[in-house]
C-alpha cells in the first residue's frame, strides 16, 4: 500500500525543470498593457508582452498589438497576444516581412546537443485563433551558424492547438554563451525575397527565399487577426496527442524569469518612491537602482513621465545614465537648484503615469 501511494504521488517527470519558453502564457507585459496602435514599418522590438519580439518591414500595413483576456476554454490560460490588422497591404514589396520572434540564449540550448549525431528534436506547441484559415510559417534560425528550418501551419477560426516537431541539427549548434543562439520565428507576412524558393523543411544554411514559401499574409485585409497563447518548446518528438502539458508557473516565477531581459518599474501610486540618490551639486544628484534579478547584460534604459525630488512636485527631473551593469544602474538626475552636495535625496513618481524601463533583451 505504501509503495502504491509512493508511485501515485510521485512528481510528474518533467523533461526540464522550468519551461524553455518564458512567458509562453502571455501573462507578463512590463512595458505596458494598453493597446499599442499604428504599428508598422520599422516599429521593431518588444511591444507589450515580455520576450515576444516584433520584427517588421511592412510597407503600408499597420496593426494593433493587444494583451487580450482570451484563451482556449479549460486550458488554464487567461491571456493571449493579439494582433489586429488595421491597414491592409496587398501590394507586397519584395523585402516586406512581419515576424514574431522568441529569442533564446545559446547557453540555454546546449542540452539539445546540436552539432552532434545525437541532436535532439525540438517540438513547438501553441494555441492560435485567427479570422480565417490562413497558412503561416514557423521555424528556427540558429544564429551563430546562420542555419534555418521551417514548417507551415494553417490557422483555424476557433482556438486550435498546433504541435510541430523539428529535427535537431547535427551539423552545428549555438555557441555556449549569453548571446542569441536560436530564434523561434513565426512569419505572418512576407514579400518575394522570402517566398520565392523552396521551404526549408530540413536544416540548411539560411536562405531568405526559403522562409515563407506558400505562406499567406496577415496584411491581406483589415479582417485579419491572430491570437496566440500557450507557446511552449519541448525537447523531443511529440504530436498534439503526446505533447507534455504546458508547465504553468506562478505569476511571480514568470515575472522573475522575464526580469533577466526586462525590468519595468511603473508608477502605481502618487509620490511612490523610485530610488535614493545623493547630491553632487546644486543641479545634479546621482541615484541607483539594484536589480532584483541580475540582467542578461548591462541594460539599456529609458524613462517616461515625471520623476521628482520628494515634495518638489513642480520640477520634473531630467535623467542621464551614469553607469549600467547586470546588477545595478546609476542615473544622474538634473534640476535647477534642487540639491545640495552630499545631501541624501528621495526621488519619487509624481501624479501622472510614469515608468522606468531597463532592457537587456536579445
Amino acid at each position: 500500500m505504501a509503495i502504491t501511494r509512493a508511485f501515485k504521488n510521485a512528481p510528474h517527470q518533467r523533461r526540464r525543470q522550468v519551461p524553455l519558453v518564458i512567458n509562453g502564457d502571455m501573462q507578463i507585459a512590463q512595458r505596458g498593457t494598453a493597446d499599442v496602435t499604428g504599428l508598422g514599418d520599422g516599429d521593431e522590438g518588444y511591444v507589450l508582452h515580455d520576450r515576444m519580439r516584433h520584427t517588421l518591414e511592412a510597407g503600408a500595413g499597420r496593426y494593433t498589438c493587444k494583451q487580450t483576456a482570451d484563451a482556449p476554454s479549460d486550458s488554464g490560460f487567461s491571456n493571449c497576444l493579439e494582433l489586429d490588422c488595421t491597414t491592409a497591404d496587398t501590394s507586397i514589396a519584395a523585402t516586406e516581412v512581419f515576424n514574431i520572434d522568441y529569442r533564446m540564449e545559446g547557453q540555454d540550448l546546449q542540452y539539445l546537443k546540436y552539432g552532434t549525431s545525437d541532436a535532439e528534436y525540438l517540438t513547438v506547441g501553441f494555441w492560435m485563433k485567427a479570422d480565417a484559415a490562413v497558412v503561416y510559417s514557423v521555424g528556427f534560425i540558429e544564429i551563430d551558424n546562420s542555419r534555418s528550418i521551417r514548417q507551415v501551419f494553417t490557422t483555424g477560426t476557433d482556438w486550435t492547438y498546433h504541435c510541430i516537431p523539428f529535427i535537431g541539427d547535427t551539423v552545428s549548434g549555438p555557441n555556449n554563451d549569453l548571446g542569441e543562439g536560436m530564434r523561434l520565428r513565426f512569419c505572418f507576412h512576407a514579400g518575394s525575397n522570402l517566398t520565392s524558393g523552396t521551404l526549408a523543411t530540413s536544416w540548411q544554411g539560411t536562405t531568405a527565399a526559403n522562409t515563407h514559401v506558400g505562406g499567406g499574409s496577415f496584411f491581406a485585409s483589415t479582417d485579419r487577426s491572430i491570437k496566440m497563447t500557450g507557446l511552449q518548446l519541448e525537447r523531443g518528438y511529440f504530436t498534439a496527442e503526446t505533447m507534455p502539458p504546458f508547465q504553468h508557473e506562478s505569476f511571480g516565477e514568470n515575472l522573475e524569469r522575464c526580469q533577466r531581459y526586462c525590468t519595468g518599474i511603473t508608477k502605481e501610486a502618487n509620490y511612490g518612491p523610485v530610488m535614493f540618490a545623493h547630491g553632487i551639486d546644486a543641479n545634479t544628484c546621482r541615484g541607483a537602482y539594484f536589480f532584483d534579478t541580475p540582467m542578461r547584460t548591462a541594460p539599456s534604459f529609458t524613462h517616461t513621465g515625471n520623476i521628482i525630488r520628494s515634495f518638489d512636485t513642480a520640477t520634473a527631473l531630467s535623467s542621464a545614465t551614469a553607469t549600467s551593469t547586470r546588477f545595478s544602474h546609476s542615473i544622474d538626475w538634473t534640476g535647477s537648484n534642487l540639491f545640495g552636495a552630499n545631501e541624501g535625496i528621495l526621488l519619487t513618481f509624481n501624479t501622472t503615469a510614469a515608468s522606468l524601463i531597463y532592457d537587456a533583451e536579445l
Partner: protein
Amino acid sequence: MKIKSVKKLPPAISGEDSTIVRITQTDDSWWDVPMDNDNVDWQELQIWAAIDGNNIADAD
C-alpha cells in the same frame, strides 16, 4: 529603432571615458545604451554607425 541622433553621455567620473550613449529616436523618445558588446541595442548601433553619414557625437 528609428534613430534620429546618437550622442555619448558624460562619464560617471570626470576625466574618464564615456561608457553610455543616448539614442534619440525620430519620435523623440530616447534610450541610454551601454557600450557593451552583449547589449543588442549597442550591436545594432554599430551597424547604424557604419553607414556613411551616421555619427556618434561626443559628449558635451
